[in-house]
Structures are given as structure tokens and as C-alpha cells.
């Protein structure tokens, strides 16, 4: 593991000294939630990869290996907080209240998959890299101007730190002291390009000082450390102390997407090390078992429950009635201008050809 500012739960499942005191302070239900959510996220993720291979969903962006970063951070947020995700944040989205079925719809190429239930403040996945950062900053700015306590979080990867939008967003956040959290999952690769090609500076977190905001680098596979870093950042933001850049050092076990082949650019021994030695779930499972909070039977039971949840979501998504082609026009403008009305009629075959 590269040097990090915070590691509470070591890869073998032992707590560090600091980790022990943090662990004692965490309510038991949350300890179990860390584990349960990570297992659910992985269950969903693995199933999605299979669904893509079966041709039942389109290209999918897997997140396996990044469960602790997503679960630890998302569990530190409240309903009122705004989430601006990239396309790999299914774990964050489901914790925020996005039904699994809708996440699947998104990967089935359906726009309904972008729309959260009422009251869930998750924006659609931001596909062009780093474009969500200025918007999260703007949403946080609005919260500050309106004197509301909600914070905004932008989720992104290490590749995004090379974009101009990253700089602009962090710079504004520093200048105006905005309640925004920039949460970077540094999974070491932007598709095939390693972090050493994104940045001559060895870490993402140290860039925070260039903007006079707080930066912290945590073991991103340590759910306890991620959660505490996020909780601190949220508290700071709510208090009016400004933005935080969190770098969660993690690893994507699989490929960039199901259309990518990571064996072309990654050393198998490196992958092996992360998969075998540093897995975020197995270390939490080991800790919970050692603490007597989880039995082998609980593990089996929860895994089965997750499978059932995902099964149901797949069924629901596949049973969702196909959208009508007319839907193309439904939300382009609040009111359709005449030319669009004509095109709509053209689509439906009800005339609409030129006069």
C-alpha cells in the first residue's frame, strides 16, 4: 500500500491503534451496515457483469474492489446532501436510495435509470470526465448562499484530476469556502493509463494545498477509515469550514468496463496482490468475526439475501415496459416549439412532413 494518512483496518483484518478507538466509537448497527452494503454492492456488481456477458444489459462499468470507498463515504452522508457521481458509483447510488432496478435500467440504455425517486439527491452519472466537479461546487455554493446545511459531493477517479474542470472546481471551492467534498477514488488506472502518467505529483490529496482546502489520503479499501474521513469532511463543510479533497486509494479489480481488457496493461502480480491481500470486504468480514459480531451462517444468509434482492431487481428491470419512441420528445423543453411538434408527428407517422 502506498503511504496514506489514515488506515484503521489493515488488510489482514486487524485494527490499528487509532482504528481500535474509532471502532469502539462506531455503533454496532453501522459496523454491520459497512459489511452488508459492501456485500450487496459486490453482489450487484458481479451479477451486472454476467448480465452484460449474457447480452441482457449494455456495456457496464464494474466497481469490484472499490466497495469500501463507496460504502464508507456514502454512509457518512444524509438525505439532504447532493451526490454528483461518475459512471462507476452504483454503490454510492444504491446507498443514497437509488433502486437497484433503476441502476440496471441505466445500463440497459434507458433514461429512466437516471431518475431517482422523489427526495433522493443523486444526479445522473457524469460520463464526460470531471464535468461533475464544477456542478457539485455550484450546488454547494447555492446551499451556502441559501444558508442550508446540505453539502455536495463529487465522485470521480484519478484520471479526472488531469482535467481542467478539476482545477476550476477546487479553485472556486477554495476561494468561496464552499461546502463541497471532492471524493477521488484513486484506483490507479484511467482505463489503461497509470496514475504516474496523470500526475508528476505522487498523490492526489496533496494538491488540496494548492487551493487552500483540506486534503486527506486514506486507505480506500478500509471502510472504517474512509467513513471517518468522509464524516470529518461533512462536519467541516456543514460548519462552514469549506471544502475537502479526499483521496481514497483503491483498486479496480476488473476492467474499466466490460468492453475493456485490463490484462493488456496491468501486471498480473499487481492485480493478484490487490485481489488476494487487500480486499475491502474480506478484511471487514475477518474483523466482524473476530469481534463476534458475524458468524459464517450470517455471511451465508446475507449473501443469499443479496442474491435475492438482485434477482428481483433484474426481474423488475427486464419486465419494465419498453418506452415509446414518443418519449424522445418528452423532456427536451418544458414546452415543445412548433418544429419539434412537427418532428414528433413525423415520428409517429401522423403527418408532420413539410407543408
Amino acid at each position, binding site marked *: 500500500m502506498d503511504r496514506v494518512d489514515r488506515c484503521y483496518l489493515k488488510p489482514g483484518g486487524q485494527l490499528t491503534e487509532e482504528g481500535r478507538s474509532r471502532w469502539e466509537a462506531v455503533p454496532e448497527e453501522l459496523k454491520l451496515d459497512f459489511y452488508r452494503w459492501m456485500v450487496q454492492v459486490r453482489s450487484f456488481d458481479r451479477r451486472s457483469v454476467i448480465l452484460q456477458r449474457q447480452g441482457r444489459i449494455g456495456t457496464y462499468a464494474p466497481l469490484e474492489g472499490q466497495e469500501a470507498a463507496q460504502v464508507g463515504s456514502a454512509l457518512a452522508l444524509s438525505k439532504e446532501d447532493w451526490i454528483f457521481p461518475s459512471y462507476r458509483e452504483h454503490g454510492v447510488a444504491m446507498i443514497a436510495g437509488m433502486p437497484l432496478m433503476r441502476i440496471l435500467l441505466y445500463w440497459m440504455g434507458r433514461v429512466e435509470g437516471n431518475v431517482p425517486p422523489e427526495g433522493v439527491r443523486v*444526479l445522473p452519472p457524469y460520463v464526460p470526465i470531471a464535468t461533475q466537479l464544477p*456542478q457539485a461546487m455550484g*450546488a454547494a455554493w447555492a446551499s451556502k448562499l441559501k444558508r442550508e446545511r446540505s453539502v*455536495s459531493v463529487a465522485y470521480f477517479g484519478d484520471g479526472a484530476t488531469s482535467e481542467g*474542470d478539476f482545477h476550476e472546481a477546487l479553485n472556486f471551492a477554495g476561494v468561496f469556502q464552499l461546502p463541497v467534498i471532492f471524493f477521488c477514488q484513486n484506483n490507479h488506472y484511467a482505463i489503461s493509463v497509470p496514475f504516474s502518467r496523470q500526475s508528476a505529483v505522487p498523490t492526489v490529496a496533496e494538491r488540496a494545498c494548492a487551493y487552500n482546502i483540506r486534503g486527506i489520503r486514506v486507505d480506500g479499501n478500509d471502510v472504517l477509515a474512509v467513513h471517518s474521513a468522509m464524516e470529518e469532511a461533512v462536519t467541516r463543510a456543514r460548519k462552514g469550514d469549506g471544502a475537502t479533497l479526499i483521496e481514497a486509494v483503491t483498486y479496480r479489480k476488473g476492467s474499466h468496463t466490460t468492453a475493456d481488457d485490463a490484462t493488456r496493461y496491468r501486471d498480473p502480480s499487481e492485480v493478484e496482490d490487490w485481489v488476494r491481500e487487500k480486499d475491502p470486504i474480506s478484511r471487514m468480514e475477518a474483523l466482524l468475526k473476530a469481534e463476534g459480531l458475524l458468524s459464517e451462517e450470517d455471511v451465508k444468509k446475507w449473501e443469499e439475501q443479496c442474491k435475492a434482492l438482485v434477482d428481483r431487481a433484474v426481474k423488475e428491470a427486464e419486465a419494465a415496459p419498453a418506452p415509446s419512441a414518443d418519449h424522445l420528445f418528452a423532456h427536451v423543453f418544458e414546452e415543445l416549439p412548433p418544429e419539434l411538434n412537427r418532428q414528433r408527428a413525423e415520428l409517429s407517422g401522423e403527418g408532420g412532413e413539410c407543408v
Partner: protein
Amino acid sequence: MSEKTLIQGINEGLRTALKERSDVVVLGEDVGKNGGVFRATEGLWEEFGDERVIDTPLAEAGIVGAAIGMAINGMRPVAEIQFMGFIYPAFEQIVTHAARLRTRTQGQHPASLVVRAPYGGGIRAPELHSDSTEALFVHTPGLKVVAPSTPSDAKGLLLSAIRDPDPVIYLEPMKIYRAFRQEVPEGWFEVPIGKARKVREGEDVTLIAWGTMVPVAERAAREASERGVSCEVLDLRSLCPLDEEAIVTSVKKTGRAVIIHEAPKNAGLGAELAARIHELAFLWMESPVKRVTGFDVPVPMFALEDDFRPSQKRIDRAIHKVMTF
């Protein structure tokens, strides 16, 4: 009512919006203490304070990105881009996000915001300050694009844009910011988006223009009338959506159209207008549509800008051609 210039109309529109809607903020480079490089925001920072009229860092993508985030979180931002030639860093935020958020979120987050930008040439501005790339935005589904040419429309269209639930690109003809004064109604008043203005009634040719080219078209119409040619002049005001009804009604009456714009010709808005006229009024036409536009060359430095921008002479020639086809 009082007599105001076009830029005062904009200023008055912003002041009215800031006064009447607490969710409106104005943000951009130099919009605060300096009152804008053209003084469009003069006095607003003093009147409404640093949280309503905000000087930002020099970062166009950051300004528009922030404005989108503010709109998502319930505000009505009016972002200023200092010159249209500098809007391109924000192009991705506008085209990928502002224009599509309503569709992508199925109406949940419509990105209700205004982006103001002075456009066009003719003021001897430094290099790369004189672009007219409205077609890029008109071509982007989900955006509305407007360009006023009078002080009163400047205010009324701006207030419409601010109230409009869809993202609006508001293009300011900087050449005529201070060209003339006009009575501008007090208080909140709107000029509807999507409605053209008939500047002059005529029988023989329809001249279609907007923004900076409207006074040029008016002058051409006046001179043509001395030669016995009666020109109708339409100021589109709204470039997207287009007021098809006004255009079609006029060309059906005159049977001839000359479209005048400052932007280059190739795939400029004139091409779309010509195609619509062809589609909707072909049988009424006495002659092919003519376009008088900027040439398909990079906008020149100012020593040659008068050769680049549509001139009176070129418009006269186009009118003559459609009359003698």
C-alpha cells in the same frame, strides 16, 4: 418609462430580476465591483451585494458549471461570459449538461439558467473578441438562443430568459450596446421567446436579421425604398425556437428573402432559415433565398473586420439579385 440604450436595458433587466426574485444571482468575471467590462452590471454589486452579484475566478467552465449546479439546487443563475469568443471552455458544460439535463433527468432538473455573452464585431476589439457562433448553440437540442437588437427587447427578452424554465443563451450585440436610445418599460416586463419582431412593413423582399445586423438591414431597406423596392424587415430576436409563422407569413407575401448574419455562411443559421423557407413556402417564392453573411474564414483582426461583416453594398446587391431573378 425612460430612454435607455441597449446595454442599459440589459442592466435594467438584471436589476429588476435581482430585485424581484431572491433566487437570482449574477456571476462572472468582472461583473461585481467593476460593473462588467461593458458596464452591463454597473451598480448592481453596490445595490445587491457580494452574494448576489459575484466576481468569480477567470474560468468559463467553472462559471457555467457552477451555474448549472446552482440551478440544480434551486437558484436562477445568470452567468456572464465576457465575450462570445471566450465561451468555448464552457462549451462542454453547456452542450453536454445544461442542454440535456432536463431530458437526462426526465424533467427533474431542467437547468434553468441564463448564459449572457456579447457577440459580433464592429467595435475594433482585440483579436478573437468578435465571434458570432450562435449556430453552435442553435444546433444543440435543449437550448434556447435569443439575441435582442433594441433596448426594450434587451430588457424584455432577458427577463423572459430568466423566468424561462429552460437554459437560455442570451447573445448581446455589443456593436449596438450604445447605438441609440429607446423608451424601456419599467418593472418586470417580458418579450416572449420565440416571437420575431416586424421592424418594417414591405411588399417585395423580406430581410431577415437579428442582433447587430438589424440596423444594417433597416438601413438597406430604407435605401432600397428610394430605388422603388419595398423591403419588409424581420428581427428574429429568438434564434431558437424560430418564429416560423412570422417568417413564412412574410415570405409568402413578398416571395423573396435575403438573410443577413454576421456569422460565417457555411452551416450558419441562414442555411437553416433558407431550408425552412424552402420546405414551408416553396411555391410562393419568386426567387431563390439569398444569404449575406460573414465569409467562411476565421473572423479577422479588426483592420479587416468591415470587409468581413455584411456590408450595405452586399445587401443592396442581394436585394437587386432577388428582385431581378
